[in-house]
């Protein structure tokens, strides 16, 4: 399937003896805490960025319809524009946002792993 090509499987290396910063993480030393905090912050900022885009894209629609009632009467090929925007346009937008998130979340995870792996 095309999707498998898009997301090539990656094997998970087995590790049993953590070294260096990795041990800091596992044993929750102050250094490990700093690394963990930085990782969580990067991931959370990414999640919030995607969430904000979603909330603005969806949440603006009732507001537009409220402030500008003509929005409800616009048509494209006889189909009311609000129906197209919400009922059709939302899905590609959400799929694109999801893809953006998955790619960037994996990049953050990978960069973090590479930083710690000896």
């Amino acid at each position: 399937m095309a999707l498998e090509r898009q997301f090539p499987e990656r094997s998970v290396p087995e590790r049993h003896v953590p070294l260096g910063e990795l041990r800091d993480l596992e044993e929750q030393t102050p250094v490990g805490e700093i690394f963990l905090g930085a990782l969580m912050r990067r991931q959370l900022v990414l999640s919030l960025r995607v969430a904000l885009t979603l909330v603005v894209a969806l949440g603006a629609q009732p507001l537009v319809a409220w402030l500008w009632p003509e929005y409800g009467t616009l048509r494209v090929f006889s189909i009311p524009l609000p129906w197209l925007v919400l009922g059709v346009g939302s899905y590609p937008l959400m799929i694109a946002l999801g893809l953006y998130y998955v790619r960037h979340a994996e990049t953050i995870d990978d960069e973090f792993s590479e930083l710690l792996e000896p």
Partner: protein
Amino acid sequence: MTSLAAVFGLLAMLVATVAVGVFARRFARTTSDFLVAARSVRPAANAAAISGEYLSAASFLGIAGLVMKFGYDVLWYPVGYAAGYLVLLIFIAGPLRRFGAYTIPDFAEGRFNSPRFRRLAVVLVLVVGLFYALPQMKAAGITVASAAGVPYATGVAATAVVVVTIVVAGGMRGVTLVQAMQFAVKLFAITVPVFVLLIQFGTPGGLFAGLAGRETASAPQATVVHAAPGDEWQVTEAIAVHLDNPTPVRLLPGARAPAVYVGAPQPPPPAGAGTEVTLGVDGTLPVGRVRWEQAADVRLPAGQPVPYGAQTPPSTTSSWLKPFGPLAGGSGQPLLFTYSLIVAILCGTMGLPHILVRFYTNPDARAARRTAWLVLVLVGLFYLWPPLYGVIGRLRAPQLYTGDLTDSVVLLLPRQVGPHVVGDALAAITAAGAFAAFAATLSGLLISLAGALGHDIYGRWLRPGASGPERSRAFRASALVAGLAAALLGLLVENFDINVLVGWAFAIAASSFFPLLVLGIWWRGLTTAGAALGAAVGGIAATLAILTTMLAAASPGLTDALVRHPALAVVLAQPAIVTIPLAFAVMVGTSLARPRAPAGVAAKMVQLHIPDRLGLRRDYIPE
């Protein structure tokens, strides 16, 4: 109303479910926990299975029905159901998979080291699960009833027996193949009939153009509608009808019938017995409320505005097409209502009891994220289509308004396609799709509910020392109890819209589990007391608000009070916009006031967030 083809569709789907279940079980790898299928399911198959379980009767039947009833505003439901998955993906999919808890109670106990918190979570799971089972039962009732021509209660009972049997026999136990097949069936069953309908009745543009030319819903050809004794119709324009025999009707005072739910309670109709008249064979229904005193088959003429049933608010096409139409607009506070609905659905998805379980079939967090994204693609592909049934329904089958049958539009519309063979085949297909929808979700729910009842309430509270076979028997008994409870409650909700009930389950989940999961994963300062108090306050507040609204349907005094305060009525009917911030505030406030982070919180955060590659992961559940 009986349709042999539809009955055939139902039975074929039942046989296919059992057959694939038996076949798949031979090959399914077993794990320690019967709740979870083999861990190493590939993302594509897994995503299809998750979508198969997620696309419930609310998606398959309810969206189309509610769009037909209320128009544009209802599009928020399918968009919200898909967006809820995006929210789940970006906030919890990866970390929760790393943490390795199967259920929300597992997470509550594992993250906060608190068996007492686990009990609270179990109770909330039971509340959300039962609420979510109600609309599935309603869908089952109307599907079986419309296919086999039996009463609604018979349909509910038959479905309860079948689904409980399947669950108790273990036929669908976490088997990926069954659920993946059911996704395929649902996608096929929603798209194929809609394409045939479009070929028969015109392009989407043509349909909307046709609607724009008809301000009132009027039947394209003469149709016969059955009126049962006691049925109440709202007649918006006097209409000439043809009856087989002269029939007594009662003309009730007031213009508006008691709508159970139009976003918020409606003013009760004026009291008074009305006057009884006898309609001749070719009589005229006058404008106003008409109650049938005897059963009658009423022939409605072509091209005339149809009467509306008691549970269907009359709507003009122009308001139906626009934002803030009869649903949001009918609430009196359109903007507040719309935003509260959006928030509930967006945040509620992750709190449904049967959704998270399937995520542990992913080998790691990376696969969990990819799976969640694929689910988003698959459900997005599905949700494009149901609203079209609602549009075609208003144009081609408005007599469904008269019988309060909009929730059945996906089942009944295909029968209008000619020639008969084609219509029958399509009716069989949509009946099979509806079966796949409510059977998949109901069995997933029953497994989750029985797990909570059997594993937690019996296995941990009542009989902590119970043996394996005893636990297994308890699980089966719990499935029976949960099925019975769902069926009994299901009998009470015939007059509620499927999606309105679903929206309530989402609101309760969003007000309790959403803040718990998001703060529990992303904020190490969350204390056990804060999390438990916040989830309890949010969940209880949302449940009480919704119960008040449900009771208002039966209590004129309460309805009257709510009508005088529309903003309060909207908040009670759609509480998420208040109860979610409330739950967050209680969680954060309590945690800050008495900052006592649970022991080992740093280790929990490592488990939740450190990439799998580094090999630090240990599943919380050791089994």
